[in-house]
């Protein structure tokens, strides 16, 4: 029982972390249909700048805020320079964002040096409680909490404001949205910046989780985020959350019960979902 609880809680926390990571991508890929391979780069920048700000201020809160700001600024630059010319063209998006990904991760080395850097957990979030054989790691509970908050905020914005509708409409027909008097370029810019900020937030939270940041972490996790967005059914926020948790739990259980397949668990999960529910877990019909 304690074992199952342990696996579940930790799987859940991992799932939440993956959700945070995928949340930005759900906006960018799911809503705006931009294949942003540089997402991982934004994530890594968030992680590094989080560690950097933590180092100079000693405050975890400031470090997270700093990382988000970094994400916003980078999001602005990315959208203006990289994404804007290639809206609506997946092929070009792949090329240009991969190029930018190289630039971003290599720039990390220029700015922060080529080595991995240790990331510290603030004292009030480090350590764990043991409750009846279940080990509750404080930082993971914190991640679960943040995940829920982010989910609620984003969901609120998408459901209660027109932003979500406008973005979806803009992806279907950009011209028409403009002809309705909406500056869609600006909307896209803001949404992209929000996505980048989410990526950076995920990075900043990921750093203390694994205890280390390194330039290659971006690409490693970007694929995971793409998997989650696909399993969740492109652009559905509840879908992403569900998919992320599924991935987290599956990873946790598989590593325990079927360790020989644990390397392949994400790929198997994605393949199975694509064969049996290609539209994703959370979309009712094929769009």
């Amino acid at each position: 029982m304690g074992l199952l609880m342990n696996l579940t809680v930790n799987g859940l926390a991992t799932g939440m972390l993956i959700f945070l990571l995928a949340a930005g991508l759900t906006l960018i890929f799911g809503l705006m249909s931009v294949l942003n391979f540089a997402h991982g780069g934004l994530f890594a920048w968030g992680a590094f700048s989080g560690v950097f700000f933590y180092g100079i201020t000693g405050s975890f809160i400031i470090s997270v805020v700093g990382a988000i700001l970094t994400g916003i600024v980078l999001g602005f630059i990315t959208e203006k320079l990289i994404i804007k010319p290639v809206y609506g063209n997946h092929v070009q998006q792949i090329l240009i964002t991969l190029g930018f990904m190289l630039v971003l991760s290599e720039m990390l080395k220029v700015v922060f040096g080529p080595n991995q850097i240790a990331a510290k957990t603030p004292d009030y979030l480090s350590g764990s409680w043991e409750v009846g054989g279940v080990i509750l790691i404080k930082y993971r509970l914190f991640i679960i909490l943040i995940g829920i908050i982010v989910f609620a905020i984003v969901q609120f914005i998408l459901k209660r404001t027109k932003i979500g509708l406008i973005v979806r409409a803009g992806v279907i027909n950009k011209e028409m949205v403009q002809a309705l008097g909406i500056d869609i370029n600006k909307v896209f810019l803001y949404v992209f910046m929000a996505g980048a900020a989410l990526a950076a937030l995920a990075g900043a939270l990921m750093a203390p989780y694994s205890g280390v940041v390194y330039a290659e972490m971006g690409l490693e996790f970007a694929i995971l985020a793409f998997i989650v967005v696909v399993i969740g059914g492109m652009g559905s926020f509840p879908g992403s959350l569900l998919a992320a948790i599924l991935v987290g739990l599956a990873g946790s259980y598989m590593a325990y019960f079927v360790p020989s397949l644990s390397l392949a668990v994400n790929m198997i999960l994605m393949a199975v979902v694509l064969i049996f529910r290609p539209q994703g877990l959370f979309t009712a019909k094929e769009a």
Partner: protein
Amino acid sequence: MSRLLTLENVHTHIGQYHILQGVSLTAEEGEVTVLLGRNGAGKTTTLRTIMGLNPASSGTIHYDGQDITKLPTFSVANGGIGYVPEDQAVFTTLTVEENLKVAMRKEDEAAMARQDYVLTLFPDLKKFWKKEGGHLSGGQKQMLAMARAFVNDNRLMLIDEPSKGLAPIVIESVMEAIREMKKQTTIVLVEQNFSMAAGVGDTYTLIDDGKTVQNGRMEELVRDEELKRTYLGIA
């Protein structure tokens, strides 16, 4: 009466093609100006140029005394211009409700009233309120495209072939609506259905090969068999 919209010798290039090669037209406040011309003449391009979707390469466009030739599309629209494109361009994965919501510039009472009016005009839309735009029938899409422009308080309306794909009875109510709307709104209409064009139009502009070839009052055109034969091929 004053001129709400004036195009002077407008030229438009799309890529390397010179599509509009001198279009001039005027729309008087409160009137319906009909653009006529054969397929590929440049009617749609004219409307798109006004909207800033295919910016003019030379010539000027004045709206309400302002030069809007170089304005971005959304500013043009925010000046109070509604646009019904020829390919309907409904947002396929958004429901009817959401399509209208995106379109609505201000969600105030007046807008709601206009929406209600549109829904009485096109009861089908109300019936399929929660249906995705992509699942509507051809005519229903056309209605939705129009409704999207009608929910806003526009001073000028650019409508590209509204009658296309509509049942005769619906065409009639659209004509009715246009006549109704004329009181507050100026309309530039592209229409191939001559009976409809003649039914609602006050003036006409005839475009051929990207150029304005003729302007005049609609009554004159209706009477002028010769002109009709040469340019419209109607006997």
